[in-house]
């Protein structure tokens, strides 16, 4: 190398302000849009109450027995759906994360169906499934005299609400859990095996505890998704007040009869429920996780 070369002239660079400016502007516009929609809901209801004397409409919603029923059903069904979804999502997520097997790509594609299919189509398909099942079981009963009947009613009943939520939400849970398992090195399981574990013990004692954060995230996602589910529930379980009406259905029903104030009031209630649950899960979940990791 020629040591007598004069040093290269200083390389000058432009300001980074443009870069940061673009990040903030592009990202910020979306955040602002989210917050504005929520804010508009709140401002709208307040304006209707105080400027247009619409308090009775809001009050009607707040004291409505149907709405309280829908609230309870929404919270309960979302919770049950979440538990059920995790039961199937944990094994599928783990399978996809750890094993290469023939048909893996196909399985992956099948799991996308509930995510990409229009919600209404999912509802219709569920309805047809049970209708066809009914036709077939009737035919069997006619020919053989054997009565095959479902122990529980799904269409137009509460189990139908849960099934409709489950079909969609479990697919999201699988995606979330697979990512969570992907982040845990397989080496740890192998070490557990050398320490004397069976595959099951390694999973139960090492992988699952380590995936707590991912499980929590998947549960939250599933719950929120189920709370907002509307299309398949409307088609498959109906919108019968005091029976299968959930909060999104309530919003739709109020909206369809022109009661915008009522619809927005219920919407704000749903936002409140979701925010409370997510904050509680986050605070308790993180405290628990951080507590274990840094103990």
């Amino acid at each position, binding site marked *: 190398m020629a040591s007598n070369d004069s040093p290269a002239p200083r390389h000058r660079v432009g300001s980074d302000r443009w870069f940061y400016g673009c990040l903030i502007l592009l990202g910020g516009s979306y955040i602002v849009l989210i917050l504005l929609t929520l804010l508009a809901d709140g401002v709208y209801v307040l304006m209707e109450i105080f400027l247009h004397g619409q308090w009775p409409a809001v009050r009607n919603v707040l004291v409505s027995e149907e709405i309280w029923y829908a609230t309870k059903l929404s919270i309960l069904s979302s919770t049950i759906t979440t538990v059920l979804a995790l039961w199937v999502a944990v094994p599928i997520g783990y399978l996809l994360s750890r094993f290469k097997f023939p048909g893996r790509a196909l399985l992956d594609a099948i799991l996308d169906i509930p995510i990409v299919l229009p919600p209404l189509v999912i509802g219709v398909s569920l309805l047809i499934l049970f209708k066809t099942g009914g036709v077939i079981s009737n035919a069997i009963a006619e020919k053989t005299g054997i009565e095959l009947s479902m122990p529980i009613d799904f269409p137009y009943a509460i189990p139908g609400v849960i099934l409709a939520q489950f079909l969609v939400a479990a697919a999201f849970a699988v995606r979330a859990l697979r990512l969570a398992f992907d982040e845990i090195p397989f*080496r*740890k399981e*192998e*070490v*557990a095996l050398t320490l*004397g574990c069976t595959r099951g*013990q390694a999973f139960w004692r090492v992988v699952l505890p380590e995936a707590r954060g991912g499980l929590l995230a998947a549960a939250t996602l599933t719950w929120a998704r189920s709370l907002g589910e509307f299309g398949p529930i409307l088609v498959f379980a109906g919108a019968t007040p005091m029976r299968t009406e959930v909060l999104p259905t309530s919003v739709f029903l109020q909206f369809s009869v022109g009661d915008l104030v009522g619809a927005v009031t219920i919407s704000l209630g749903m936002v409140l429920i979701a925010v409370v649950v997510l904050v509680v899960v986050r605070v308790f979940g993180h405290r628990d996780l951080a507590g*274990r990791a*840094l*103990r």
Partner: protein
Amino acid sequence: MIELSGVHIVSGSFALTDVAFSVPRGAYAVLMGRTGSGKTTILEAICGLKRVVAGDIRFAGENVTQLKAAERGIGFVPQDGALFRSMTVREHLEFALEIRRWDKPRRHERVAELAAMVGVEHLLDRGVVGLSGGETQRVALGRALSFRPAILCLDEPLSALDDESRQEMIELLKRIQRDTGVTALHVTHNRSEAERLADVWLRLVDGKVVDVSSDAVSSDAR
């Protein structure tokens, strides 16, 4: 103690054929070779984590080729420690004993013994997030030795350590091997590590393991 003959391992598109070598009981063997030469693959096969297509692996004369990893009784220290984030240091040292259903007093006694052996007494009730590289490897070593295995397999256990921790760990490994009489197989690409630890010096060249211990005097051969 460890004996491989005609071992054939396939790992993806990579294959090792006819691997053969032996490590006598109580020896500290170091297996060296270039990155990507298959050192870790051989270690995994010995631990039962990689399927052997052909050939035999014997421990003290017993053929273990078809045994599961859990049944081979090998202490395994992986490269980055691979500690369990959900457990404290104590729980790491206790893990294999719990799996083996040791009773509580015996477990506690063993944990105290292990903690003193690898020097982690002050860390016992801590989680493993935030441990230094040296502390991590000490915990991994204690965990691997907890159930008194006859064989210890170490996969580049010192590669991520700073110089000072590396020297300490080398001293620790030598002392532990002397005190417990465990047969060790240590994979590394670091020559100074090998020089200080090896009783048996193995090299993996072009897919074959060669014992170069006898050439030890002329260091060029290494």
